[in-house]
């Protein structure tokens, strides 16, 4: 949300989920449906340019070590485990 607040798109529906789950978790069509539909429903509230609405969903998930996901995403440990380098390989 910090980057979005700086970039200022006309209207933003924010989902407080990890990157890669912008529309929810895999093979959960009900969850995905709720997320997308609530984003569209939020349009009615977005009457001011630059509005950011938090859709209000919260995820109770953990890293492999049992840490809350918020503490873990986009740390060096997370990147090693979960992401690729620009050469398409696992980071060191």
């Amino acid at each position, binding site marked *: 949300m910090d980057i979005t607040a700086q970039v200022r798109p006309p209207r933003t529906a924010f989902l407080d989920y990890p990157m890669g*789950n912008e529309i*929810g978790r*895999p093979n959960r069509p009900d969850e*995905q449906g709720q997320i997308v539909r609530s984003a569209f429903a939020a349009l009615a509230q977005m009457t001011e340019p*630059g509005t950011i609405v938090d859709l209000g969903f919260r995820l109770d998930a953990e890293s492999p070590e049992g840490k809350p996901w918020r503490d873990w995403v986009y740390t060096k440990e997370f990147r090693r485990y979960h992401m690729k*380098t620009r050469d*398409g390989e696992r980071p060191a």
Partner: protein
Amino acid sequence: MPIDYISRTRELYSPLPPYRWTDNRDAPVPWTPLTKPLSDCRVALVASGGIHLDTQPPFHFKDDTSIRIIPTSAETSRVRIAHFGYPTSDAEKDPNCVFPLDVLREMVKDGTIKELAPDAVTCMGGIYSQRRVEEELIPPVVDKIKQQNVDLCYLVPA
């Protein structure tokens, strides 16, 4: 508390110099009022999660400013993911996580929206050059959306 991605990204990529995201806080926000109910709207889908069809080449990761055109009637099972800047394993299991084709098609069926633009536009958003984004990536995206006479454009980041 939403994550402070700016400081976390800085830490993650240190000792590289900090990346400077676009800052539009002093600029007017581009704005078109929505004047129709959703049930009358044609909606376009634009997504930056490195999404492509199995018959299309994947994105590369060194400032790839190309786009892919994906029919919104495409089978979800033919969708592939090529990106480095986010964990892609969930999207690889189910592309709807970053490319909500199934949900949007349901929303047309039940009349929540009138229709989907026939073509979705995708890119690989992990591009460090803002100039190349503005000069190379954005014009074809805008053209494709404008050609389809839409009322709303749904931008899904990843």
